[in-house]
């Protein structure tokens, strides 16, 4: 897979809620406000997984969402990065003992970037996106060799 440096400056994010309490989602919307303005770096939210480079998952994966999460992941074109936002998505958090959970996100699909917090601050989410960019850069470096 040939990667260009343009990935660093144009990262399109698809946001998927796999059972979050909506707290994380509000923080994601907050990080898109003019105060933080991630479009400066070419980061924008897209409506379709086919357009996306980053899959941003919030919340623990409920039984109903397992199949959907896997399908959304499969629908994204290569190269792709998965980023989870929130403690729930990492470990189940406050919902970890719930009867209808299939588990945290990394038991369903492979995850590249974790952003902890309940809910994480917008700064932390942007830091996570920067880490995703760094991961693309690493892939790019290994593609060069």
């Amino acid at each position, binding site marked *: 897979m040939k990667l260009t440096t343009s*990935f660093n400056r*144009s990262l399109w994010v698809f946001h998927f809620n796999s059972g979050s309490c909506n707290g994380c989602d509000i923080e994601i919307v907050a990080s898109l406000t003019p105060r933080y*303005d991630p479009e400066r770096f*070419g980061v924008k939210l897209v409506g379709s997984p086919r*357009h996306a480079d980053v899959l941003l998952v919030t919340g623990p994966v409920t039984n109903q969402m397992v199949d959907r999460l896997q399908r959304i992941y499969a629908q994204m*074109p290569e190269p792709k990065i998965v980023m989870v936002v929130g403690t729930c998505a990492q470990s189940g958090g406050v919902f970890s003992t719930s009867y209808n959970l299939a588990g945290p996100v990394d038991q369903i699909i492979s995850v590249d970037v974790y952003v902890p917090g309940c809910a994480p601050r917008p700064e932390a989410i942007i830091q996570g996106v920067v880490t995703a960019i760094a991961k693309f850069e690493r892939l790019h470096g290994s593609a060069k060799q």
Partner: protein
Amino acid sequence: MNQILLAVVGTIFLAIFAIAFGLILSGIDRRIVARMQARVGPPLLQPFTDVQKLLAKQSIIPANAIPCLFNTMPIVALASAITILLYLPFGSFAPVLGEFGDVILILYLLTIPSLALIIGGFASGSPYATIGAQREMVSMIAYELPLTIAVIAIVWRLMIAGIHEPFSILTLMQNPVWSVVGPLGIIALFILLVMMAWVLPGELSKIPFDSPEAETELAGGILVEYSGRNLGLFMLSQAVKMVAISTFGIILLLPWNLSQFFGISGIIAWITDTIIFALKVLFVMTVSVTIIRTTMARFRITQIVGLYWLVLGGLGAIAMILMMVDAFFCEMI
């Protein structure tokens, strides 16, 4: 033989110019929108980066798509958008295929990129894309009416004024309608100007007329299944179409070149005319795409049809009547 070679070279040059110009225009557009929302906004060359990235990504063909249509439509869209430009003059550059086409041909050619988008949407076999394609068809039918009224009113007025071959693009360039009509006609032309300013965002499916692409309800609408190279090609065709439709509007309603006023000629005239032309395109795009898109929310598809047919169609009828009265008085005196 020589002419064919010239046409081929001209086409290649024009394609590169139009893609670059269109992408820079959309960069400027995004930047102005960001400034109006009190943001910093992306760098000017962001669309180039986006397209470059999309071209490097994998292109997925969905399992229930029709691959041959799905893959050819982006190319058809880009090619037809470039074809429109072959008939349009830029500044004082004569069109590459100037002798052959007229305004009616351009009206037809303008629909082809949208048709390609619609066929691509239907061929991707996704319910979202199907709804998007249906909406695109409806909005196409809607904005055709005011666009055609504007063209017909202008051309008819030129014809009554005794101008030879009013349908030809070069005639429209050389005889600005504003200098032909009387005071009532000027009012009519201002109405047509307003109509054209509203047709432009519809033609380009920008907010508030972006219900075919509606990101929030249709997840990208027509383009929902497109990824990678195909999506990049559609973005390019959108950029080229932006240049084409604004040029068409400029030829119809703002056709002046500075070199005619100051009587300059040669290289300097070319340069000034090209710069003025670029500024005019930028102005048209800022007013009718950027500002409208920042200040308004999306229309429902029924509202789009109502706006184009009832409001703008009604305005167009008034403009036509004014034109007729104007022609009657001017030719009587």
